[in-house]
Every structure is written in structure tokens, then in C-alpha cells.
């Protein structure tokens, strides 16, 4: 581990410029009466509140009041999948996945999963199908969120709890946890063919408790291994979708890191309740902000989730499971520049575009 580098603001600026250029082109397209009619969209942030069992939705570029969508009277949701205006939320202890239409602000349907599912971790396979992990059953289920049917279930590893879909393949993160929810050894990743819904391979990773991940600018899958509670053994495994194995591994992510996201400059941002936000550069293989120098939003060394909007702005979640919490938008120097109220115990955030109106 070398000396952590400072954030590369130039890349951040370039990213912002590209986003602005894209928006300009979209707007230009909208004003071109001779071209195809494009829908007017707006970007929204979606926060999953695990104790409230709800979503908070807010406009990224508007000052409107956030609104809340209740998902179910019971459950323990900690993850969600977003595609366009649809959000799929596995309900944890309740074996079901709630499907929300952000344009109407309603739960359009709740699709039952097999009893004992544990429903945690989901990803859209296409516009209609969602793959949901069943940690209690060692399987994944594919549900059609449009017609509300359970398509099929496929056995994977032990305690699957996260899914990423990339280039026609689904990567299922198997925590390999025992009945006491402690890792029994290093985790595994099950790779499935999305079209045929068949298991292609099972990959051993070096870290314990793989739980979440993100696709990097280089096309690799970056898997966060959360490790054990208070084990200080969080790590990141890197997968190349074409090679059935772990291509690299990086330790030093501290105690129980959460779901990561890539910043506009291509660095991996990893939140943790135990230190805040760490930044690691896949290019240099170095920490930009190691755990001991992690970003501390509001001066508090803790974050329960993070995400980037289309403009490349970083948002972090204030980890408060006792009272309504907040999502914080940070400046390029990681100062809090905006705060919006969310529900109790926000655990995940995502950004998407929905039709205006």
C-alpha cells in the first residue's frame, strides 16, 4: 500500500463535462422536431429505508419535497435493483419482492418467493425479469415483475445475498455463512447465463462474505467481501467476466464494508459504518483514501451507503436506525453541500431517470 493519493479532480471535472454534454445533446434532440420524440425525463434518487420498509424518492436537480413509498408491513429489506422507473426490493424475512413504479409512486405488485427465501440481493436481467437471491435456500429466483410470476429458481452457493448482471451473465455473491450468520470460510461467486438461466461456473474468492459489488469502468466486477462483524477483514475481489476465477484481490477495507460504487473518475468508493467512505483506485491499485483517512461525512466516521448521480456527485447515507435519517450530498472536497430527509435506517441509494410528470 503506497501513500494514498488525493482525489483526482480533473477526472471528476471531465466526467461532469461529459455528463453535461450528454444532457445538452438530449435537450437538443428534444428540440429537434424532425427527429424521434424523446420522453422528457428527470433524475431521481431512490433511498431504501430498511427499518421503515420504505423508499424515499427525491428529485436530484429539483427542490421538491421527497416522497415516501411504503413497501410492506413487515420484512427486512437491505438491497434493491433499479431499472428505469421500476424498483425491485427483496423483502428479507418476508419471502417476496416488492415492485415499485416510480412514475406512480406505488407498489405495483409484490411477488411471492419460495418460503424461507430470506430474499436479499437483486438485479434486473432485462426490462421484465429480476433475479433475486434466496440466502435461506441457497438459490436464486427469477421473477417477472410485469406479470408478477415466479419464473424459476436455480440452486447456487450457500447464502447468496447479492446479484450483479453484466454482459449477459449474472454474478451471484454467496456469503457461505453458517446458521449463526458467520462465514464458514471464503466466499464464492456463482456465474449464470442470463439467457439460458444456467449455472456456468462457481468462483472461489479470497475474502469472506461477498455481499455486494459494482461493475468498473474496465468491465471488471468488483466484489466487496464484507468479512465478519468486528473482524476488520473487509476486502475486494476482482473478477473478469470472461475468466472463471478471481483475477485480483485487495484487502484493507476494514470492518464490514457495504455496497460500493464507482465515482466519475473511475475510483471505487466503499462505505462502512465503522469508518465512513474509503476510496481505492483500480488503476494504481492504491488507496486514495484508506480507512484510517476515510471520508467522514458531517465529521462522523460512518456511512451506511453511497451513490453517484448522473453529474458525478457523491451522496452518502447517514446511518441512523433510531430516528428518521438523511442523505447527504458531498462537494468535490467532501463537504456536505445538501441534506435531504429520508426514513429510518437508510441502507442503499440508487439514481435513475423517470419520465417527467
Amino acid at each position, binding site marked *: 500500500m503506497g501513500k494514498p493519493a488525493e482525489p483526482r479532480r480533473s477526472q471528476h471535472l471531465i466526467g461532469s463535462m461529459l455528463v453535461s454534454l450528454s444532457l445538452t445533446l438530449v435537450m437538443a434532440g428534444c428540440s429537434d422536431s424532425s427527429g424521434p420524440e424523446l420522453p422528457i425525463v428527470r433524475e431521481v434518487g431512490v433511498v431504501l*429505508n*430498511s*427499518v*421503515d*420498509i*420504505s423508499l424515499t424518492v427525491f428529485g436530484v436537480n429539483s427542490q421538491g419535497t421527497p416522497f*415516501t*413509498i*411504503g*413497501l*410492506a*408491513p*413487515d*420484512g*427486512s429489506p*437491505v438491497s434493491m435493483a433499479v431499472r428505469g422507473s421500476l424498483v425491485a426490493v427483496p*423483502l*428479507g*424475512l*418476508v*419471502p*417476496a419482492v*416488492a415492485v415499485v413504479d416510480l412514475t406512480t409512486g406505488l*407498489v405495483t405488485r*409484490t*411477488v*411471492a*418467493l419460495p*418460503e*424461507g427465501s*430470506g430474499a436479499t440481493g437483486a438485479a434486473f436481467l432485462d426490462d421484465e425479469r429480476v433475479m433475486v437471491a434466496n440466502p*435461506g435456500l441457497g438459490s436464486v429466483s427469477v421473477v417477472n415483475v410485469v406479470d408478477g410470476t415466479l419464473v424459476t429458481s436455480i440452486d447456487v452457493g450457500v447464502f447468496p445475498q447479492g446479484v450483479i448482471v453484466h454482459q449477459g451473465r449474472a454474478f451471484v455473491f454467496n456469503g457461505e455463512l453458517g*446458521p*449463526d*450468520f458467520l462465514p464458514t470460510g471464503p466466499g464464492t461467486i456463482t456465474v449464470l447465463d442470463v439467457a439460458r438461466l444456467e449455472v456456468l461456473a462457481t468462483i472461489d474468492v479470497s475474502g469472506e462474505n461477498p455481499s455486494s459489488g459494482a461493475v468498473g469502468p474496465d468491465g471488471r466486477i468488483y466484489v466487496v467481501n464484507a468479512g465478519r*462483524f468486528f473482524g476488520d477483514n473487509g476486502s475486494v475481489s476482482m473478477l473478469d467476466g470472461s475468466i472463471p476465477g478471481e483475477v485480483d484481490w485487495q484487502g484493507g477495507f476494514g470492518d*464490514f464494508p457495504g455496497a460500493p460504487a464507482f465515482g466519475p473518475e473511475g475510483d471505487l468508493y466503499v462505505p462502512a*459504518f465503522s469508518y465512513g467512505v474509503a476510496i481505492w483506485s483500480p488503476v494504481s491499485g492504491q488507496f486514495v483514501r484508506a480507512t484510517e483517512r476515510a471520508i467522514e461525512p458531517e465529521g462522523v466516521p460512518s456511512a*451506511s451507503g453511497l451513490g453517484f448521480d448522473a453529474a458525478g456527485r457523491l451522496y452518502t447515507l447517514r*446511518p441512523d*436506525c*433510531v*430516528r*428518521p435519517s438523511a442523505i447527504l450530498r458531498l462537494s468535490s472536497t467532501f463537504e456536505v453541500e445538501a441534506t435531504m430527509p429520508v*426514513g*429510518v*435506517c437508510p*441502507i442503499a441509494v440508487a439514481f435513475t431517470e423517470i419520465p417527467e410528470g
Partner: protein
Amino acid sequence: MRAFYLISTWPRGRPTALAGVLSLLALGALHPPRASAQWPGQIHGSVTDAVTGAPVSQVAVQLADQSRATTSDQAGAFRLRGVDPGAHRLMVTRLGYAPAEVLVSVENGAIARVRLVMTPTPIGIGGLGVRLDPAVAPGAYSIGSPEIRDAGASTLGDLLRGRPGVTVSERGVGGAQTISIRGVAGDGVLVLIDGVPLNDPTTGEADLSRLAASSAEEITVLPGAHTARFGQRAQGGVVLVRTRAAGSGPRLRTEGGSLGRWRAAAEWGASAGGFRIGAGGEASGADGGFTFTQPGDIGGGEAHRRNADVERWTGWATVNGVVAEGLLRLRLGSERIERGLPGKSFAPSRSARQTATRSQASIAWSRVEQGLDLGATLFGTLDEAHLEDPDPPLGRSFDTRTRLSSGGLKIAVTRRWSGIWRPEVGGGLDGEYQRVNSGALSETSPRQRAETSAYAHGAVTPPLGNAAPTLSLAVRAHRDGLSGIWRTTHEVGVAWARGPVSLQVSQRSGFSPPSLGDQYFREGVAVVPNPDLGPERVPSEWEAAVAFAGGRAVGWSGGLSAFRGDIAGMIVWQPDFRFVWSPRNIDVRRDGLEAWFGADAYFGGGGSLKLKAEFSLVRVTYDRDDPEPVQVLYRPRHTGALRADFELGSWSGGGRARYLGARFPVPSPVNELPGFWSIDVAIRHTWRPAGWRVRAGLRVDRLLDQTDALIFGFPQPGRTLGLAMEVQRLP
């Protein structure tokens, strides 16, 4: 006895049940209600206080064998019309007085006159404590023996469900039942069985499903913070249960119904050597399984409730008599329950089981003289519980055993003077020692604790004429058995009555300590104890109440009680970001009101109709910066009930519609569970073959097939039927 045969041989299943119902109704229709030469008589009477000689108003007067009842007026007078000629047992009960009964002979078409004297008795701790005047218990109410008998309830929780200000949380059919009063959870409601706490020290809660309804003679509910009067945990209210004592003769009861429900109870009483001896027992059970529809917001679909069976056994014996010029009561009782723990409907447990046994022995002595009350209660309890689930839906298998033994002594004295201020002072000492061995608790959990408290109380009535107010004060000092910290609580009350109207204002404080489980639960899957947890406290609770009663041909009564008492450090289990649950202290704002109105009408030919409406509003909201106040989870803001009971010749019955308002299952104003009504109806018929009384009844619960429940995930079975038959030898 044909009907008895029908019921006692009734197997589990609806077709046979329906046949039994039809047979019973046919039998009732064929039976002539009254011989044509008989004319109903009346009973006129008065009730006075044994100590002061003053008239006693609001006394519940009831014929034991006819369900006919009324209440005494401000002059202590009462009238019962439409009474069948013959011998009747007349029972009188009132809060703060020992119940009494007398045999009355009514001649054909004549008026029988009786004078009753009621002895003021302390209630709540086995015949001692303090005399409760309205100033300290403005919203109190009692459920007497006839109502308990007619309610068709299996458990103490069934009896209290839907009462004003009371919410009974149930874990499904046959599951644990805990009581919440005025928004305070079960660990802040003290339940005393003959003065002995039923609250489990490991959870702080009293499981009301473990006490058979038939073993209770009278249940008194006192809403409000009454820690100063009754001890710690009496923060949201107190439930005082006086168990059945020696009966007057043999009584048999058997029941059956949907869900494979069955019940058989028997009791017996006799006199020997100046003592009254009684004994009784009950066995009951249910299969508990039923098919239900999962709510659409968790995916819908049909499911079947399994592992929901329950069996209970209850036995008791009492000896009552006069010793050293006082009343001595010795009671031995034991309850055992075996049941499946089916869990939530969406994460059912197929193999979780609970077996629990509680044995209690108590000896209470009290003497009420002119101006001096003395009392003492010595008790011992032994609780054993076994919980196991070899294949839980979540986490590790478990197999834990808990053994709790406790013993205690309560001593009380009250002195009254009949001077112009009518002063009254008293005090007492309570002590209890507990030993706990539980596999559910961590190694660091204390195995023994000693709780002690001392209290004093007083009251005066200034000489201000007929409408003089009564001022009362009580204080108690408690020593926490774990921390050794002393805490004090108090009650101050003013009561005023004139004519049919009475007013009361009270100010009090209360507290409820964390349970052993809160602080020392064995850390496990997704559960972490909190050793630093503090007690719940109600630093100041105000309550104002008005009550009124009147009427002649139609008697009516009503009242309104409003309260405000925030809770500092309410103990609430909440998950953290890892979904690991742990208890925390949170501050809560709390206020509300209870309103009730009732009317009783009596008609010629022995008919009567009673109507009652009750409503409760409880606002229990988080003390935090919410745009709108957010109700604490699973505390319905509104509850209410409408009741109607009738008696027509040998037929009686009634209906009850209960409303449980909307509630939030999460600590935010989302995912609201809508309120719902449930309607129960019952009809009974009584025969009187020579020297005996035979009653048969039919109950339909949740008449409209309602399946909602207070807590999400514990479905109710919809409409159920129950048939009961009781045979009693008349005195």
C-alpha cells in the same frame, strides 16, 4: 341432560358442531320458559359501608343464576325487577369492597327486601394494600364472575381484549398474550394474581394466555401510573385478578368448537370445621390449524397454519376461614401449558414448542375493624419453562430452559378516623426474592435479586358539606434489586361527587425497570442485549375524569377520562444497520382519553336489555423532530366497542362489536395497517331441573369472517363457532 350428552361427545369438526347447535336450539324452543301460574317478583335493597355506615353507590348487583343485574344509586339503593319466584343468590361487587352475596327468597309476584353491608377492603395485593377510592382510580373497572362465565373466554387475555384503553397482543390462536394499557407495553403493566406478580422477570411481561379465564373470580383494571400504590411496572396500569375461591357446590362445564377447541372444567366447594374448602380444575386445548390467505402486500397466496396446537391444565384449591378475628385465605394453584409456536405466517416455524408450568402458593390474612385494616400475604411461586426449536426458519436451533423461583411478603396497615376530616393513613412493606436460572440469559446475568419497597398513603375529606372533596396522597420508595438504586413514585388525587356526577383529578408518577432479558439476553443470532438500558419512567401523569349515572325505568351511566403522561426512556427493541435487534430507551409523548356510555332497560316478563359503548384514544408518539407526530409502532390510536346484552325469559345473549384502529408496524407513518371491526355474538338458554341449573350456549366469534389481527403476520382464523354446556347445583 340430553344436551350435555350432545356436547360432551362432540368430536372436532364443524358438521357435528352445527348439528349440536341445532339440537340445542330445538331443545330450548321446546322448553317452556316459565310455568303459567308464576309471576315475576322484585328485589329491592340497599347497600351500606360496614365501617362508616354510609350508602355505597355504583355497586354491581347481580343474580347469580339469572344474569339479571343493576347498580346501586347514590343512596345505595337498587331494584331488580322480573325476578323468577324462588331462591336466588344475590351477589354484590364494587371496587374497594369485598364482594358479598346473600340468599334471597322471592315470592310469586312479591317484593323481597334486603339490606347488604359491604366491607371496605384493600385490593390488589391479596386482600391488603390500600382502599381504592375514585380519586386514585377514576377509570377503573371490574369484570365480575357472571361476566367471566358468560364471556366464553379461554384465557385472561381473551377476557380483557377490547376493553377501554386496553390492547391485547396475541401471537395467533393459542399463542402468548400480552397486555398494553394506554400505549404502555406489557412490561409496563403489572398483573397481580391474588397480589402476586405474574410478570416474568426475564421479559417483564405477563403472558395472559397462561391463566385460564375460569380460574378468575374478578378482574379489576386500573389504567394509569399506579406504581406508588402497587409497585414497579404499574406504569401503564394494573390488572388485579382475584382467583376463584370455594364454590357453593359442584359445577361442571364443557365446551367445544372450531379449530378443534375443547374445554372441560369442574369445581367443588364445601364447609368443614368452620372453614370453607374449594377446589377446581380445567383442561383445554385446540388444534389451532386453519387455512388462510396471505396478504397481497407480502405476495398473497393460500397457506395453512401449522404447529399452532395448545393444551392447558389448571388446578387450584382454597381454604377460607376466620383466624385471629381476621379472614385467612390459603390458595394453591398450578397451571401448565404446552403449545406450538408457529411464528409469523410468512416465516413459519414447524418445530418450535413451548412447555411452561407455574405453581403458586399464597396465604393471606386480613382484618378489617372499625377504623383499622391489617393485612399480610406470604407467597411463593415456581415457574419452569422449556423452549425449543430444532429447525427454526432463521438462525440456529435452540433448546433453553428457565427456572424461576420466588418468594415474597407483603404487609399493610391502614387506620381511619371518623372525625370531621375523616382522615386515613396507612403504609406497608413489600419484599420479594427471586432466583433465576435460564439458558436464555448470558453468563453475566444475575441469578438472584431482591426487590423491596415501602409505601405510605393518606386521605382526608375537608368538612365542606355534602360535596366535600376527598384528597389523597400515596408515595412509595423502591429499591432496585440489581442496581441498588432507590426510586420514589407518588400519586395525588382529588375526588368530588354531588348527585349523579363525580369528578376526579389525579397526578402521579411511575416507572418500570428493564427486564433481565433486555439487559442480559444471551447474545445470539440477530439479538444483542443492552446492559446499559435504563428504566422507563412516567415523570408526571395527569388525569381528569368525570362520571355520571342516573335514570329510573332506564338506567344510564357514562364518563370521560383524559390523561397526559409522557414516557421518558420507553424501552423499544429496534434493529441496527446490521438488523441486529437490541433494546433502547426512547422518549415518547403520550396523551389520550377514554369515554363510555351505557344504558340498562328492564321490561315486564323478565326481559332486559343492556347497551354499552366505549371509545379510547391514545396518542403515543415519538419525541423527535417529525413533521407530523408519528405513533409508536403497533399502538392503535383508536379503539372502541359496542355491546348489547339481552335477557328474555330463559334466553339470554348478546353481541359485541370491537374496533381496533389503524396502526403502524414501523416507526414511520408508512405501511399503515387499516383498522377493522370484529363482531362476536352469543346466545344462551337456561333450564332449571330440580335443584340444578343447566345452561347451554352458542358463540360465534368474528361473525363476519374477519381475519385481521393487531400484529401483522399472526393471522386470525375468521369465523369460529363454540358450544358450551354448564351444569351447576343450586344452593
